[in-house]
């Protein structure tokens, strides 16, 4: 499958840039970021609070089947321009990972395609590198399979 999501994490920098092109009109892409029900479907966490406006705040919560909260995250919205950009902070509760600053830019490519540019800034290079490892849990098996294929081609 084509790799649509690109991640840039240069050495000795405290930022990550994630870009992705979607087969979706800009308005639908943006809606996926501001509608609490839709957020729950793709992020797996419920938006128990989401104030889509400048100086608003948000809170995500994920519960297991028994109703125990297993994941919480929160932040404030610094700037909110519909179909253009969201600037916000993101922090996970009860973890050693500190707060991060996110610049989300939404861009129309064609009537039916759009692009998201996500620029995430961390407090330090060490924080950033630690954060990069989080993806491990979910992605590691599939990533290895993928990589195996690439490496076999190189041989």
């Amino acid at each position, binding site marked *: 499958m084509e790799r*649509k999501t690109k991640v840039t994490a240069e050495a000795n920098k405290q930022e990550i840039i994630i870009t992705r092109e979607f087969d979706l009109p800009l308005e*639908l892409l943006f809606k996926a970021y501001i509608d609490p029900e*839709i957020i729950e479907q*793709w992020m797996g966490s419920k938006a128990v609070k989401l104030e889509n406006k400048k100086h608003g705040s948000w809170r995500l919560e994920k519960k297991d089947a028994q109703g125990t909260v297993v994941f919480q995250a929160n932040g404030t919205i610094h700037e909110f321009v519909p179909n253009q950009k969201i600037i916000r902070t993101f922090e996970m509760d009860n973890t050693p990972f500190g707060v991060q600053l996110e610049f989300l830019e939404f861009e129309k490519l064609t009537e039916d395609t759009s692009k998201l540019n996500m620029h995430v800034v961390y407090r330090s290079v060490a924080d950033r590198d630690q954060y990069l490892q989080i*993806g491990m849990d979910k992605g590691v098996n599939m*990533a290895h399979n993928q990589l195996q294929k690439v490496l076999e081609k*190189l041989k």
Partner: protein
Amino acid sequence: MELRRDVFQAIADPTRRAIITLVALHAMTPTAIAGNFDSSRQTISKHIQILTECELLEQRQNGREIYYHLNPKKIKEIADFIEPFRKFWDDRFNKLESIMKKYRTKK
């Protein structure tokens, strides 16, 4: 002062990434690599040197010519570091995309 170079610095540069892509296809001489770029031979040599220092490229002597090969072990090191994170976001965004496609047809 000696600069500490690691693989991540090596791939931060677009020309060096392009060299990696070229050599990934087949082993090449420095002249053949430089032939693919508008930059001077010297500039490309410098890039090749950095990639070699970081062990992304390996030299092999073949007769009178030196050929550069890709070092898959080192490439894997880079991929292992970033790939799980990328995969995590790719999965999420794939989900977002399919949910919104359904959402559109429902409307």
